[in-house]
């Protein structure tokens, strides 16, 4: 076990799959020579060669569409899109083809591939570099959607994603790449899909989150703990498949739920969770299920982006009003 940051954990996991599965290839813009804009693929081309770690032209639809063909022909492509804001040109390939070939061909052709995409705000980058639009993918049938929060989960979920027989959208929390450090196995321990993890145990309220928001949620939970509110903190890890059982089990104990999501509010993943929780547990609820979300605005640029991302203060305030039943 070594202490690694989240980016390093991903590099290690990629190196591991490239080393152990000759069918895996990595492709994307600048992933090779320069190791990717966040250096997640650093050193992999030098080690595994330019045929397996491939620098492509600037064409997201092409990257993802080619990966689709490769997957059908027996490879395990791991495509990288530089930022979630640059994934939209590839959206048609993902929605119309990658997510559907299994159904279209009744299992005859399949597209086991991974699309890695850095997401989220918090590094003061330019427009399009701060998106949290995971809901576009969770609304698309046929895709698994994975968002790790910790280095060990990042590595472990990536191994599972590469081994998965179906296409996986793998969203990497930009602001955790270097901020978070933690123990990661060598090789990393695979982490199963569809299993949420309880990051903190409490009995007063359930806070549900994932990805880049998890560290802030834990910080908020710690602050709440000082004032006597003990929160269950659930990190979903995968949105599709969803471990709704873990959520309901916790809400059954606490009677209160707060969902924290960086993405836009309307039709975000928090909406799905809130809808599901009240569908299954209405009579157990002692307060409305609360949502703490990004707004229905473009993510503001550097000088104002802190108004957008759920702050610890907003999380704490939402939990407090949930405790008051409003």
């Amino acid at each position, binding site marked *: 076990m070594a202490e690694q940051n989240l980016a390093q954990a991903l590099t290690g996991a990629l190196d591991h799959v490239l080393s152990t599965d000759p069918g895996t290839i990595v492709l994307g813009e600048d992933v090779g020579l320069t190791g990717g804009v966040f250096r997640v693929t650093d050193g992999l081309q030098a080690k595994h060669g330019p045929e397996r770690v491939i620098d492509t032209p600037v064409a997201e639809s092409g990257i993802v569409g080619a990966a689709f*063909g490769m997957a*059908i022909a027996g490879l395990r492509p791991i495509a990288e899109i530089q930022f979630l804001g640059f994934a939209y040109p590839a959206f048609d390939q993902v929605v119309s083809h990658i997510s559907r070939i299994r159904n279209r061909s009744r299992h005859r052709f399949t597209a086991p591939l991974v699309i890695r995409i850095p997401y989220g705000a918090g590094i003061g980058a330019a427009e399009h570099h701060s998106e949290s639009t995971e809901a576009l993918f969770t609304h698309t049938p046929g895709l698994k959607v994975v968002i790790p929060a910790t280095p060990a989960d990042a590595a472990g979920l990536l191994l599972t994603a590469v081994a998965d027989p179906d296409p996986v959208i793998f969203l990497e929390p930009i602001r955790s790449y270097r901020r978070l450090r933690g123990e990661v196995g060598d090789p990393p321990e695979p982490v199963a899909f569809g299993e949420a993890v309880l990051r903190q145990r409490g009995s007063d309220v359930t806070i549900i989150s994932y990805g880049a928001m998890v560290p802030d949620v834990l910080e908020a939970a710690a602050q709440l703990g000082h004032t006597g509110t003990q929160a269950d903190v659930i990190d979903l890890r995968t949105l599709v498949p969803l471990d709704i059982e873990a959520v309901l089990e916790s809400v059954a104990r606490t009677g209160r739920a707060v969902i924290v999501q960086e993405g836009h509010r309307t039709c975000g993943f928090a909406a799905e969770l809130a809808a599901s929780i009240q569908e299954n547990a209405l009579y157990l609820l002692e307060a409305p299920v609360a949502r703490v979300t990004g707004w229905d605005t473009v993510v503001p640029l550097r000088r104002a982006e802190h108004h957008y991302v759920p702050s610890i203060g907003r999380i704490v305030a939402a939990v407090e009003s949930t405790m008051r039943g409003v």
Partner: protein
Amino acid sequence: MLEILRPDGSIVGEPPFSMDETKRLYGAMVSARTYDTKGTALQKQGRLATYASFEGQEAAQVGAIATLRHDDWLVATYRDAAAMWMQGYPWVNLFLGRTGDERGGSPPVGVNVLPPSITVGAHMIHAVGLGWAEAHQGRDRIAMTLFGDGATSEGDFHEAMNFAGVFGAPVVFLCQNNHYAISTPRHRQTASETIAQKADAYGIPGVQVDGNDLFAVATAAQEAVARARDGSGPTLIEAVTFRVGPHTTADDPSRYRDVSEETEWRGLDPIDRVQRYLESLGEWTPEWNDQLAESAAKEIEAAIAEAEAFDPLGPSEIFEAMFETPTPQLERQRSLLVGEPDG
């Protein structure tokens, strides 16, 4: 524009096929025409969803596929049933798909033909990925992709051609320029004089051929396939042809073109042309033709019967092929639909 077999059945240059092979391909075109006529007829009876006829494009499809190996990849469109069938995709699957049944998209193992592309343009890059992956794995299978003149306007055409050029992928791009994209004529689709010349933008060879000329299409395809197979990279072939029928059974061409255009092109029919050629060599008789037509009709009827014998997918089945193993969410939705108690 490469031409070998002239409309009157005479020949300039070298036919790419032996007489036996030519006769086999003539038979294939007859089968394809039989399927096509049947497709339109069944749709009119409400037994198929909208049907897209390829009448007039048989030489382009049959000629191109004749140059492939049985295990090469084919990625084609809703209008390419002749090509898909030639490459092993059973008639029954083609019919089944057109009845509106996903199982049409599941050809037998060993047939390396993807289900027909309904979206225009997105599928060419799939062929690039397929061919690339074959080469990567040290195999010499290649990929061919078929698309229309309209498809060349989509951004994905560009990305596919560019990737193929940069990575030298073993792909043959076959554009059937049938002069229309629904109602839009070829000259309003792009201001380039030919579609073949677009290859130059990607450092790829491009060639224009008479698409109603079985021999010209096959000659160009042979060369392109050989280049792909030996690692020399992709080729773009523009087969100039014409969609003599409507875009689909839902379309009314009289809204956008003069019937004289159709009549003129019917005069250039690709099957008639081979017939004249064979006849001039004493290789075609009405009896032989009847025989071909009859056995094609039988085969097609059998395929229809087989397709129509499928019971429709049941409510449970629509959840079954979203993933290898359905997620708990899908299981729950399945239960909701079929009324089983929620697990």
